[in-house]
């Protein structure tokens, strides 16, 4: 009895095929953005594929949605458990398993007995009347697993289940996976930790750029081969990288640590005219590092040195005053203010430059906005148009314009080309290069390895909040970056 699923031509997935057998642990690996999350969303019914079919136990599933997926026995356990924090363990389990009308009566003792039994089957002992908000992360995962067992899930998807677990917790999780397996469930196991995968997985499928690269038996591949499969692509696009003379060190971090940000002892330097790439997996502390430098999260120890002077940065206003600009990731949430016009978005961080005695000079503001709209080639009829009416690439240019208007000496770009079209992307790369040529120091955080390799003079790889290693432009390869990011020096 095999459970088979195949897809072809899914959005963000290009003809991915994947099959899961009953009673196996099938690892799914790939870089950031390889399509793992989308594939999972297709299985759980969160997104609808454009083409392709999903078969469960031989039956074709049409019109999959989260409810259907649940009744078909698909359960997903995410890195951050999706539980109701203010309800008890028993209630959380009951909500997932019980069905019926709003007026049915609740048998509290049966709920607790059921919860206790399911948790025992998951190999743990948690009091069913405890509030979920009092549980530790591994305990919350146990509750999620108990839900999956209770639902008699045939397919259990685990997305980075070990990301926040200690080693002993990992081994107890693996015991539970063994229990699920022997019960006949198929398990899809997603992780960046290759050593775990060789321990737990029966088969491994590698995804890259939304395509299936291959499926191997876990016994017949080693880590180097897996990394090669994950990377395995040439730098296809042409990057407008030029050599420009480097100046003095513009920004230096010495042993920067912050508990709230989760970064430890980060030291790096970037010179005028240099583009420093910061690579690493999602969650490796890249964005948190940028936020610490920009004064959004406090640093506990370490120094930030700008142009040779030790500075204290406690707020974004301090950072701006010291000539640091930060174009955040996720422009819709953090970058542009969608309801404000382009002109107001452009001047938002440099209002003092277009004001006299605190009074905004509309003409100066318009001129400023028009200058950057022209320079960055933002496609818009007028700078009075609301930023929300622009395309993603043009919104990103407006976010960039805001920071260029502050005339920063150090510019931090977090995923500068994420979600923008190819044309805008190479335009943004060209702008970055021009800025560097003008003597600006640029720190570029990117999950896209070809971009990191194509644009950076040097590359710092982060892992678990620390610097895992540094590579020069000449030495860097996708394999080396990925090995450092995963913690397997080649």
């Amino acid at each position, binding site marked *: 009895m095999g459970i088979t699923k195949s897809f072809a031509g899914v959005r963000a997935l290009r003809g991915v095929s994947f099959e899961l057998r009953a009673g196996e642990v099938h690892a799914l690996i790939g870089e950031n953005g390889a399509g793992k999350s989308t594939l999972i969303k297709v299985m759980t019914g969160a997104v609808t594929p454009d083409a392709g079919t999903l078969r469960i136990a031989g039956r074709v599933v049409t019109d999959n949605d989260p409810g259907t997926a649940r009744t078909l026995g698909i359960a997903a356990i995410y890195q951050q458990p999706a539980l109701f924090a203010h309800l008890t363990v028993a209630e959380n389990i009951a909500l997932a398993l019980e069905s019926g009308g709003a007026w049915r009566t609740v048998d509290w003792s049966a709920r607790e007995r059921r919860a206790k039994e399911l948790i025992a089957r998951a190999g743990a002992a948690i009091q069913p009347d405890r509030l979920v908000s009092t549980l530790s992360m591994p305990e919350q995962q146990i509750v999620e697993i108990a839900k999956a067992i209770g639902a008699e899930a045939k397919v259990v998807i685990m997305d980075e289940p070990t990301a926040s677990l200690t080693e002993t917790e990992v081994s107890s999780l693996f015991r539970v996976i063994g229990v699920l397996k022997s019960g006949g469930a198929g398990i899809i196991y997603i992780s960046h930790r290759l050593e775990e995968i060789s321990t737990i997985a029966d088969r491994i499928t590698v995804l890259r750029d939304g395509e299936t690269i291959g499926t191997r038996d876990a016994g017949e591949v080693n880590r180097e081969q897996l990394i090669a499969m994950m990377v395995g692509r040439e730098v296809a696009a042409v990057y407008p990288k030029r050599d420009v003379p480097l100046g003095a060190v513009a920004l230096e971090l010495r042993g920067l640590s912050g508990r709230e940000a989760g970064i430890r002892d980060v030291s790096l330097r970037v010179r005028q005219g240099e583009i420093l790439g910061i690579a690493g997996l999602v969650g490796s502390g890249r964005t948190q590092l940028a936020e610490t430098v*920009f004064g*959004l999260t406090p640093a506990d120890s370490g120094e930030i040195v700008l142009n040779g002077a030790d500075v204290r940065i406690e*707020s*974004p*206003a301090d*950072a*701006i005053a010291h000539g640091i600009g*930060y174009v*955040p990731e996720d422009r819709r*949430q*953090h*970058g*542009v*203010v*969608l*309801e*404000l*016009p382009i002109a*107001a978005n452009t*001047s*938002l*961080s440099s*209002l*003092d430059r277009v*004001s006299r005695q*605190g*009074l*905004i000079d*509309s003409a100066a503001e318009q001129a400023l906005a028009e200058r950057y709209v022209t320079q960055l080639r933002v496609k818009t009829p007028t700078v*009075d148009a*609301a930023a*929300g*009416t622009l395309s993603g690439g043009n919104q990103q240019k407006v976010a960039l314009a*805001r920071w260029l208007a502050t005339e920063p000496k150090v510019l931090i770009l977090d995923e500068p080309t994420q979600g923008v079209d190819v044309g805008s992307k190479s335009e943004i790369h060209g702008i970055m290069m021009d800025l560097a040529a003008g003597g600006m120091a640029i720190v570029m955080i990117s999950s896209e390895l070809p971009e990191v390799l194509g644009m950076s003079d040097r590359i710092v790889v982060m892992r678990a909040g620390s610097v895992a290693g540094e590579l020069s432009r000449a030495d860097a390869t996708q394999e080396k970056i990925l090995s450092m990011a995963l913690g397997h020096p080649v």
Partner: protein
Amino acid sequence: MRKRYGRELSVAASILALALVLAALAPGYFSGENLADLFLANMPVLLIALGMNMVILTGQIDISVGSMFAICGIVAGVLSKTGMPVACAVLGGVAAGVGMGAVNGALVAYVRIPSIVVTLATMVALRDGLRWATQGAWVSDLPPGFQWLGLSQGSYPVLIACTVVIFVAATGWGLRHLAAGRAVYATGSNAEAARLAGIDTNRLTFGVFAVTGALTGIAAVLNSVRFNQIPSNAGLGLELKVIAAVVVGGTAITGGSGSTAGTVLGVILLGMIGPALTFLGVSAYWEQALQGAIILAAVIVEAFRERAEKRVARA
């Protein structure tokens, strides 16, 4: 912020329509005396609404203005009875407003308690604190220089008119042309993006509450000098009138969009209705129901307008 005035125009059109009906059926409504009364009665709502507009634009709310209004009036009256110069008593009343607004602002901005909770608590605490302090007694036997601020009954409305014009112009101009005004819109439409752009959103939030407290104090003092007694239960339900006027004037209750002109028009429209009913021979009991209907109509129109805009933006 928006360059379109659609919402302001529709409120203005409603005012005009109501005025035409009144002109035809009850021309007495437009007597100088009635209009002056109407203006003086709505002056507090207008001044406080200017501050409330900023609070709501920032994405917050302040429902304690009615209680603050009562306290500021009493403070000014009690101070003037101690024999101090009227100017000092006036300043004392305004300072009380600033202080109470600052407490609201500090709790919202720095302790990070939702503004509806903070101002609900201060609304009740201030109201009952005042009742306890005054034992419900009104302040009377005010010194002669206090009433009309020592002006003649005829020149007092001129002073009020000038004050209102100055504050309307200052807030309207400031929201458009000052960096702080820009920060209000940015914070209200996307607080996180505003923070990342280097705006001190906490200080801004604190500021709008303090300014609203100040405007409430000014409104309370200017209102209390009109009478020979200062009631200890003034401003009951005032917060609702003020918020309603701001919302009818087109300011999004979620923040980020709206204008001073809209707020002024909102105050005028809602303020016209009560006396208009009397003049038209309709029972005054209908006033609140009608005001409620206008508020609902305004927000429903806005909801449809927003949906239409989104459709245009997507296309």
